[in-house]
């Protein structure tokens, strides 16, 4: 989707990513949120498909009701009015490791076809080309959250055949192995990019293109990933953001257009 096309369509790439992601949260109760796009997605879902959604931030805020858009996951607005504030140990041990988290958002510098993620390093670990932030909570979130949603912009350098480093495990490519893992999480379940949405094949665990965003072609998708993607037989089109969703995003959630322009 070129920028011109997105202007014609009346919404930006970020806005369709947000709307498509929020719809995936229908019925979710406890969601582990990150800053930036995931934060807007979860707040939009709270207004639309998941009114009972409890926002959990790894800083220890449970049931947060932010009155402003937080710049970081440790913003004081996440504390005032929250259901609970926990220590870091309680959050990771009791809430996450015990299996209370339904959905979590992850992203990364690199993802492979099985949803494994790299947030550690580009290049060799000991002689890095780019040193990235590292795991944070991502490694254990990937293992314990029942569902993992990934929001990432698509490009050859980020959708790669081989990760430089596997920070957070996704599917292994061997379904029997995955079933025997005994983790509370089921691994990544959806990927939303600026070009389309993906699920993961139930038998192979491989990322599968489910919908293309309006005006995006299969060639656009192929040109922006490092492997030839599996495509669903009934490949569809992502519904455009509704006027209501756009109004909420622009007027309530990100009026400054910090994340959505």
């Amino acid at each position, binding site marked *: 989707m070129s920028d011109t096309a997105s202007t014609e369509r009346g919404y930006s790439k970020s806005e369709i990513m947000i709307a498509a992601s929020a719809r995936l949260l229908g019925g979710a109760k406890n969601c582990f949120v990150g800053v930036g796009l995931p934060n807007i997605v979860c707040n939009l879902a709270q207004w639309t498909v998941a009114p009972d959604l409890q926002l959990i931030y790894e800083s220890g805020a449970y049931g947060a009701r932010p009155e402003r858009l937080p710049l*970081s996951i440790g913003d004081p607005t996440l*504390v005032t009015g929250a259901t609970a504030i926990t220590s870091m140990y309680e959050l990771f041990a009791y809430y996450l490791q015990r299996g209370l988290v339904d959905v979590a958002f992850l992203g990364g510098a690199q993802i492979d076809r099985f949803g494994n993620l790299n947030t550690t390093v580009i290049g060799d670990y000991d002689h890095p080309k780019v040193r990235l932030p590292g795991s944070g909570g991502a490694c254990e979130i990937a293992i314990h959250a029942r569902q993992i949603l990934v929001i990432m912009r698509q490009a050859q350098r980020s959708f790669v055949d081989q990760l430089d480093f596997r920070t957070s495990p996704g599917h292994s490519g061997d379904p029997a192995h995955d079933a025997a893992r005994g983790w509370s999480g089921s691994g990544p379940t959806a990927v939303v990019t600026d070009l389309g949405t993906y699920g993961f094949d139930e038998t192979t665990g491989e990322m599968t293109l489910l919908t293309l965003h309006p005006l995006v072609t299969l060639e656009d998708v192929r040109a922006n990933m490092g492997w030839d993607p599996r495509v669903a037989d009934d490949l569809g089109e992502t519904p455009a953001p509704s006027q209501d969703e756009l109004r909420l995003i622009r007027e309530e959630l990100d009026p400054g257009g910090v994340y959505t322009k």
Partner: protein
Amino acid sequence: MQDAVRELVRDGDTVAIEGFTHLISFAAGHEIIRQRRRDLTLARMTPDVIYDQMIGAGVANKLIFSWMGNPGVGNLHAVRRRIEHADPAPLEIEEYSHFGMVCRYMAGASNLPFFPIRSYYESDIPSVNPKIVPMRSPYEDGTEVYVVPPLRPDVTIVHAQRADADGDAQIWGLLGCQKEAAFAAERVIVVVEEVVDEAVIRKDPNRTVIPGAIVDAVVEEPFGCHPSFAQGYYDRDNAFYLEWDRIAKDPETLDAWLGEWVYGLANHREYVEKFGRAYWDGLRPEPALSGEVDYGRYA
């Protein structure tokens, strides 16, 4: 603060300045830079702007962490220059996930030889950190866990909203791992917005996170977390975190900033005065008081 750092932070120490976004003692970090400590190992879950400043100033040669970055903004440029280009010197790193770091402090605080967690499965992290070790439960289920070793800092420095003169410290808002990092340490410095009467602490004992019994020094340093924040006292200075990205990108502007805001000032009071009263007024939140609870009197 000068006395606390002079007496309790020594060259070569492992130092943890904790606080998860909240309650990060920038004032202590600046004093360590000012006193030109060297060869420190810095531990922290999230090396944030404070460690970029300290590492940029050359106080450390090793970093133990689980997420390094400028939260909500991007990179730590000084740290990255050291890791990617050994510029101006190499920086040894030892990395975990958040849960792993928390549990290292838990083991240290609890006097345990290791702490088991369910993480790191099929991740490359253990392959670059031999201290993260797989182990099977000795019980029937035989569950595979990974264990992490205790982290016992020589010095932990935490900020809290208030403490009495003995160091009994109370925190509200994000708790991070202030308690665990303090109990894990050999020496503890507690920095607070206000030193209060012991009676204030005793009125609300549930809020006490760190007992004075493990505290070696109490320092009253209003606005001592800036640009981090103290819940209810002042907001996170997000504009400064964004500005730091520009400052740290070039070693010359970073050095100039350290010269003006750290080496050029005698102490944190001068830092606060240099910003001016209007600046701090702009960071003050509207009040949002908690309801009171009744502990009851049992005489």
